[in-house]
């Protein structure tokens, strides 16, 4: 197994190297790791608003539109200005310009033709990326090309981050942080209800421009680290992951920033340890892993949580149905013999006929109830409630009947108050209301409240 891994061509780091990276001992590594962490924070913040504004694809179009700008800037700098092609600010300026042109084109296509948003973005995205590839192919032969490392913009190469880049990333992160805090409420309204925001006089277009400008900034400074193909994933994934944990925008934004930072930190650390792995891909994979984890285990909308609560609910309903069924049968049996209701044995067959249960389902319910110590199986054909089961059954039946009456007599206010899941009506309705309902139970000729019956059966005060 171990030798198999060695054959992949990856150099596995020694413990020493591991500590070196984790403790940020090497200043180059420290610079890279801190940069990507800060970048993750910024992209997590701005990604939230981008996601909720439903502009994710716009971010994608923007980043792909950066490619021709990089190539063209290289040409302009080397051919016309006699500069070195490696000049980073020049390259990023080019990227910004074509990126913005791409976004403007998307808006123009959308506003002047009947082509829909997604189609417009798709067109711009692929045309600009194609254009960029052509330009890069053209300049491949020119001197200084390989030194400039233009390809690293496509897939990202954290190792090439310089002090200048690191400073730039930190400045951008500061701007993004400041805007997210100051314009939090404005962005929130913009993303939720554009029409209302506009009617209130907020400059919707201006806010959109600010948001897209922030996305552009993060994209451009992120090109070095993550690369233009994957930067959109770095923007959107932390936000999407955060959404699984919360239903509150403030919490979501904070979480998204944290998830972004962790992805940036862990991704850069891993790729520092395993230099042959492309950094951008590793960072995005870490983010994707956090996303997957959140999707399953997220506390607000995670799949597992949904399954679990569904399962619990089913179990609870099953238990309530069974206990109520047994109790009602007992009630009927005792009434036949004009006795006070008591915990008499109930034949399995009667139970089976009481509801449209299959024999298998009844056995399953009985097994579950036996497990919960609510039921005593007397012999193969008869069941009886245990002492705690009888109390529980009486409570459930009473609750059920009170809710039933409530729904009938208070149909107008019912919907917002009925919570049949609540353990007892008393938790939801006022004592006066419960008393009123109990009186109604009597009037309608429904057997007296089982609550008291149960107490009587146990010899308590009636």
């Amino acid at each position, binding site marked *: 197994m171990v030798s198999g891994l060695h054959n992949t061509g990856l150099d596995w780091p020694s413990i020493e190297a591991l500590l070196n990276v984790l403790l940020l001992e090497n200043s180059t590594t420290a610079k890279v790791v801190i940069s990507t962490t800060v970048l993750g924070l910024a992209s997590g913040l701005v990604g939230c608003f981008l996601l*909720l504004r*439903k502009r994710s694809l716009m971010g994608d179009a923007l980043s792909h539109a950066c490619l021709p700008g990089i190539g063209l800037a290289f040409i302009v700098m080397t051919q016309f200005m006699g500069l070195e092609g490696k000049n980073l600010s020049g390259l990023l300026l080019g990227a910004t310009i074509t990126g913005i042109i791409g976004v403007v084109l998307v808006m123009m296509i959308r506003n002047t033709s009947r082509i829909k948003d997604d189609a417009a973005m798709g067109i711009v995205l692929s045309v600009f990326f194609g254009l960029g590839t052509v330009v890069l192919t053209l300049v491949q032969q020119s001197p200084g090309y390989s030194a400039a490392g233009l390809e690293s913009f496509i897939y990202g190469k954290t190792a090439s981050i310089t002090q200048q880049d690191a400073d730039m990333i930190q400045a951008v992160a500061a701007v993004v942080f400041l805007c997210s805090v*100051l*314009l*939090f*409420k*404005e962005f*929130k*309204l913009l*993303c*939720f*209800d554009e*029409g*209302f925001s*506009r*009617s*209130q*006089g*907020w*400059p919707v277009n*201006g806010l959109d421009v600010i948001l897209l400008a922030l996305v552009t900034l993060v994209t451009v400074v992120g090109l070095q680290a993550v690369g233009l193909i994957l930067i959109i994933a770095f923007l959107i994934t932390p936000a999407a992951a955060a*959404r699984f944990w*919360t*239903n*509150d*925008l403030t919490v*979501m934004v904070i979480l998204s920033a944290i998830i972004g930072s962790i992805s940036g930190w862990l991704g850069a650390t891993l790729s520092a340890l395993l230099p042959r792995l492309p950094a951008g891909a590793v960072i995005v994979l870490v983010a994707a892993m956090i996303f997957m984890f959140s999707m399953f285990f997220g506390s607000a909308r995670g799949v597992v949580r949904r399954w679990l609560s569904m399962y619990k609910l089913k179990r609870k309903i099953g238990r309530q149905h069974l206990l109520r069924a047994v109790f009602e049968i007992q009630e009927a049996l005792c009434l036949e013999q004009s006795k006070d209701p008591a915990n008499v044995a109930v034949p399995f067959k009667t139970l089976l006929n009481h509801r449209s249960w299959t024999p298998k389902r009844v056995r399953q319910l009985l097994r579950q109830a036996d497990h919960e110590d609510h039921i005593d199986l007397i012999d193969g054909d008869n069941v009886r409630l245990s002492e705690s089961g009888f109390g529980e059954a009486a409570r459930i039946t009473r609750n059920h009947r009170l809710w039933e009456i409530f729904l009938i007599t208070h*149909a*107008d*206010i019912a*919907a*917002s108050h009925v919570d049949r899941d609540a353990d007892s009506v008393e938790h939801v309705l006022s004592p006066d209301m419960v008393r009123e309902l109990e009186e109604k139970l009597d009037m309608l000729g429904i057997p007296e409240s089982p609550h008291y019956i149960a107490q009587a059966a146990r010899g308590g005060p009636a």
Partner: protein
Amino acid sequence: MPDLAYHNKPSATPPLREDDHSPRAPLSIHDLTVAYHRKPVLWDIDLDIPEGKLVGIIGPNGAGKSTLIKACLDLVPKASGLVQVYGQPYKRQRSVVGYVPQRESVDWDFPVSALDVVTMGLYRDIGWFKVVRRKHKDIARAALDRVGISHLAERQISQLSGGQQQRVFLARALAQDASLYFMDEPFAAVDAATERAIVTLLKDLQSQGKTTLVVHHDLATVTQYFDYVILLNMRVVAAGPTEEVFTAENLHRTYGGKLTLLAEAGHALSQIKRG
């Protein structure tokens, strides 16, 4: 955008200038034409809405009812015409106008609570860059209480029923404490109890002297709810006090040959005679 933060909220009924001879109508529209993609959907609309009325905007699907409201609120460009709110352009009167959009116009899956949404009605008062304070939340909570769902304040909005979501939108408009309200189909897909609650609220607003325009589809309840109606189908077919304007002939002219709707109109008219 300076008008947002520095705008002083005028009192509910702005004082008349001396040279004003007639009271300024809450809403007056002159020669309004609105077009999407060159196709006009509203033609030469002329309206003066008197103060303190509960106004029904009635018309078939696609008649331009939503568009009329959006044009008043500068949400769609006007091809021509003039809209005045208390004698001034809308953009100088934003703080006295409340708006309840159609419920489907937003994504209810958004990560905010009912209280958050209602608070959005106050963002204008709060102003740029400032945060929401406790006093704003208290106002929002009171508004939720007025629509009867203060117990759902903390609930995420996707976990509300359609009727409850509608109430949240109403509460947001109430929190604005406006004197002219536009409501786009507040009765859409709500049950009888919610409808009654909303009507009570509307009459309540009216008794406070506020003017409310409501897009409404159920012809059978028009006479019961509204004391003023606008019959709209690309142009204003008729507008005026309900008893004068809500006639078989006008409904016929509004709904044209749409037979099922005419049957409904007939039913509505039989209600008028009885009422």
